[in-house]
């Protein structure tokens, strides 16, 4: 067996070095010989037994009797019975209160002590109810009790060294608990005898060979440094396989960190971040994106409506007129439009933003050309909340504006995202459909862990969207499904866990 000497505590070391094969090892002995506190001694026994270095050979209950403070006083000045006898023997008869007063004893003590003298016929009461000595000899149990008390002055008495008579007497004057009112306290303890095992002997040899004495420096203190005592001492080494306690550090949230990482990736690719309010209106959430007000395409964006205020005050011009015209007849966008009457009240209806494309639309009204923009923004969908759908979630979307931006650039951009953001090993493009882009492209990627999945949707904004918002140049628009990648990154299967309020699970969660 391999002995790792570093794993022994100084208390164990000293004990092992002190004992030899075949010897009885008891707490008494170790306390006496190594000057251990009883607690330290028991600790060492328990550790060494756990390591297989000691084994128990015997166990017995040891009963000892120890004088209490009261017992000590009686041993020195006599028991109440003895003192009453001595008082009455040399003087006049006295009443019990008078005795109590003269001896400075409690009436109750006097009562029981006199009772025992009277019962043995040593004392009696006269006609005036005063006690006198009737028989000049003390009863045997009074004198024997006195002797037993004196014996206790030399230290605790082991029950095994007492006569039967002494044990019987002791029973009357000792108590196990609440012994302050009794002369003796009875102590009972388990005494275990140990013996060193083969393992223990091997450990002892290893300690001797390694010259470990148990006197090595444990915690290095400022005092040790100041005194220089370390110069002649050695340091106790720490075991490497001892159990370690993990700390609770201050820490970033791993999902928030992932989002931050994606933001950094995108800025490193030349994208400027945008943001926007949570409360939006139908205009920016749908109309500006050329989604007809009453078309089924809006079914896929079922939204939460704000209770109050139901409508925003106004939609900024010229965007409102441009968009309304575009819906009705194409406006100046080269389109024939959706050919219906645009509802100017509905467009002001307030909702919670339902798609990440909304801030992209806002950005068009203030974008520079060329420009690259992105946002990772919270969106809200009217959906049953389950493992795949949260009440609110992040969408990552962006746009690229450039005179020459075209489909091939869009494919290149998607490829860059697949490689840089998702770490994809393979990818393919398929035609997609979004109401606000034409053409529309989805990118499906082969993820090292997840396999093939749709990583994002994209397209070139329809001229109906861009021209109405003041942009004549082509605009590439894209969105990435980073939630799925984040969940994979964090090793979770339930989208609700991304926003878990559970402190324990957030504390221990790690990114891959």
């Amino acid at each position, binding site marked *: 067996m391999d002995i790792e000497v570093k794993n022994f505590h100084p208390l164990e070391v000293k004990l092992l070095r002190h004992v030899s094969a075949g010897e009885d090892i008891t707490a008494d002995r170790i306390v006496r010989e190594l000057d251990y506190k009883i607690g330290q001694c028991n600790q060492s026994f328990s550790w060494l037994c756990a390591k297989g270095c000691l084994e128990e050979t015997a166990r017995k209950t040891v009963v000892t009797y120890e004088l209490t403070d009261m017992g000590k006083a009686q041993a020195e000045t006599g028991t109440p019975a003895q003192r009453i006898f001595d008082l009455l023997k040399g003087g006049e008869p006295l009443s019990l209160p008078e005795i109590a007063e003269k001896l400075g004893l409690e009436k109750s003590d006097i009562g029981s002590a006199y009772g025992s003298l009277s019962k043995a016929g040593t004392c009696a009461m006269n006609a005036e109810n005063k006690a006198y000595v009737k028989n000049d000899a003390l009863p045997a149990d009074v004198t024997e009790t006195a002797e037993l008390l004196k014996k206790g002055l030399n230290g605790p008495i082991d029950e095994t060294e007492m006569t039967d008579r002494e044990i019987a007497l002791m029973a009357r004057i000792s108590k196990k608990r609440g012994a302050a009112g009794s002369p003796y306290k009875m102590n009972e303890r388990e005494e275990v005898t140990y013996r060193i095992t083969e393992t223990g002997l091997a450990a002892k040899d290893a300690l001797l060979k390694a010259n470990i004495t148990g006197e090595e420096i444990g915690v290095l203190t400022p005092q040790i440094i100041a005194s220089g005592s370390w110069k002649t001492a050695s340091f106790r080494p720490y075991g490497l396989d001892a159990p370690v306690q993990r700390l609770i550090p201050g820490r970033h949230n791993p999902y928030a960190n992932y989002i931050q990482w994606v933001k950094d990736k995108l800025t490193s690719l030349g994208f400027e971040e945008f943001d926007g309010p949570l409360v939006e209106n139908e205009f920016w959430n749908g109309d500006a994106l050329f989604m007809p007000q009453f078309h*089924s395409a809006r079914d896929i964006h079922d939204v939460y409506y704000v209770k*109050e205020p139901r409508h925003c005050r106004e939609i900024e011009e010229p965007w409102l007129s441009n968009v309304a015209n575009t819906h009705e007849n194409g406006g100046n966008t080269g389109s024939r439009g959706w050919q219906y009457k645009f509802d100017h009240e509905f467009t002001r209806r307030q909702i919670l933003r339902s798609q990440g494309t909304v801030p992209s639309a806002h950005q068009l009204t203030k974008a520079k050309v060329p420009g690259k923009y992105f946002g990772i923004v919270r969106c809200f969908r009217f959906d049953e909340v389950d493992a795949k759908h949260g009440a609110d979630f992040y969408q990552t979307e962006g746009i690229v504006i450039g005179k020459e931006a075209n*489909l091939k650039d869009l494919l290149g951009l998607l490829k860059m995202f697949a490689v840089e953001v998702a770490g994809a090993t393979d990818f393919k493009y398929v035609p997609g459909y979004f109401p606000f882009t034409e*053409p529309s492209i989805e990118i499906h990627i082969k993820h090292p862990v997840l396999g093939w999945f749709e990583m994002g949707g994209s397209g070139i904004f329809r001229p109906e969207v861009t021209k109405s918002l003041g942009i004549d140049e082509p605009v590439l628009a894209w969105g990435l499904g980073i939630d799925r990648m984040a969940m994979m990154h964090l090793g979770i299967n339930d989208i609700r866990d991304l926003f878990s309020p*559970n402190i324990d699970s957030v504390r221990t969660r790690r990114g891959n």
Partner: protein
Amino acid sequence: MPKFETKEKFLFSLLGREYTDDELEQVFPRAKAELDEHDKENGVFKIELNDTNRPDLWSAMGLARLLKNYEDPQIKEYDFFSSKCFTADNKGRELHVGNRAKEVREFSCGFVASGKTVDEDILLTLIQSQEKLCFNFGRKRKTIAMGIYRNDLIQYPIHYDGADPDKTHFVPLHMEEDLTLCEILEKHPKGQEYGYIIKDKPVYPYLYDNAGKTLSMPPVINSAFVGAVEIGDNNLFVEMSGPILKDILLCASIMAVDMADLGFTIEPVKVIYPYETEFGKEITVPYYFQDSQSCTVQEIKHVLGEDINVEDAKDALLRMGVYSVSEGDTIHITCPEYRNDFLHPVDVVEDVMIGYGLENFEPTIPRDFTVGRLTPAEELGRKVKDIMVGMGFQEMIYNYLGSRREYVDNMHIKGDKVIMISNPMSENFEAVRPSIIPSLLESESVSGHATYPHKIFEVGKVAYLEPSNNSGTVTRNSLGFMSADGSVTFNDANSFINTLMYFLRTEYTLAVPEDDPRFIPGRCADIIVGGKKIGIFGEVHPAVLESWGCGMPAIVAEIDLDCLL
């Protein structure tokens, strides 16, 4: 997204050959379709269609039409269409629309399909087409409702009009009782489901033949007799109704070409309106109404980034089932009878792209140089997060929707600034959070088992009512933190704030807040920067802790970070 089911054999017979799943996955993207499921045991495909503007693709016939033509371009001619310039022979079949239809559901149209016996496959596919077209394209029957009837039982002309809901009655499909239109809305399951579309109108839509036999009450239910199509029928009348004429004409065209592809002979019906429509008073259906669309090779190059010549573009369009002619650099397309999605030249360009093959475009990287940049709020947020982490706090990230109980009742506040949702999915998600503090206390309430101390924070958004803004609301970036354990006090919160503000280089003072029931009176403070309150901190009131079911003392703080920008 619409999905439909089709038997393997049925789809393969329409495609002209069998395909493996891999092959289907190769060709489906041409129709923006996905193989959602393949039930091999029963030989059934479940197919999802992504393009909500292409209802013609939502059936096995439509999907097969495109895919088959892509591989072997031969655009099928459908000779039963009338148009502005040509009117097909309706052989005396007429549908007369009455004056009162306008008051409830203005337009109706239909055609006859005969010469093919309805079998199980055909019945299933017709029912599915009807469902998809009316539900997805027709907004749950609001704008398109479709009925299929046994033509042998019909005596022409057919009449469509608004009818008195209390006096008109018939036996609806799947029932035996003769009910008034009103009673049908109350008693029939379809009446309960779709009745709301017409309920408040003075008259209800009613379709009946010249002998007075009821065909249906669109968009609710067919009659039990004429409207009960079964396997074995071989002469059908197909009718659509709705408030948008172009939508129901398109829908009729889709059904007509689908049924022609199934082997039916399509026989036109002349619809006569008592008033002018955009296509006149008389429309012979199926009717081709679509406008032409054009695009130039320059537009194609501009959008796709590839030099595609006129002939290649025309070939690509042909593969997509779109016939075109060129005039110099301009390509004029003829919109297929079953489509109406060419709103803009870019819609033509997309068909060129798919017909040309997406795999033939080489990706390039955008050449323009642009500067990447985070928002100032993000930059500040990161600074704040780092300081909080350094002080031993765990960052959290929470949902922004919750209940009024959490955001208002548990916080013992009035809640008059909370943004409520008028159509919540459940009361658990009925309000936008006005503060991060309830989120933090929710954490505390579910984390009693986690080792103390609990030190958590979030940098996130809050939103609340703000009458001075256009939207009457405002969204702010906010920091909230909480520390809970047996010995935490106001002084701890004060130290955290002091340390945070020191490293943010922000001078601040403290002030006694107005009554705030969230905190123990005398143990909370407003944080003042530049004379303006930007935040608050203090010991959480035991009444609040009790409402949340928290047993540990806690301090919380919240700071409006946008005030520090």
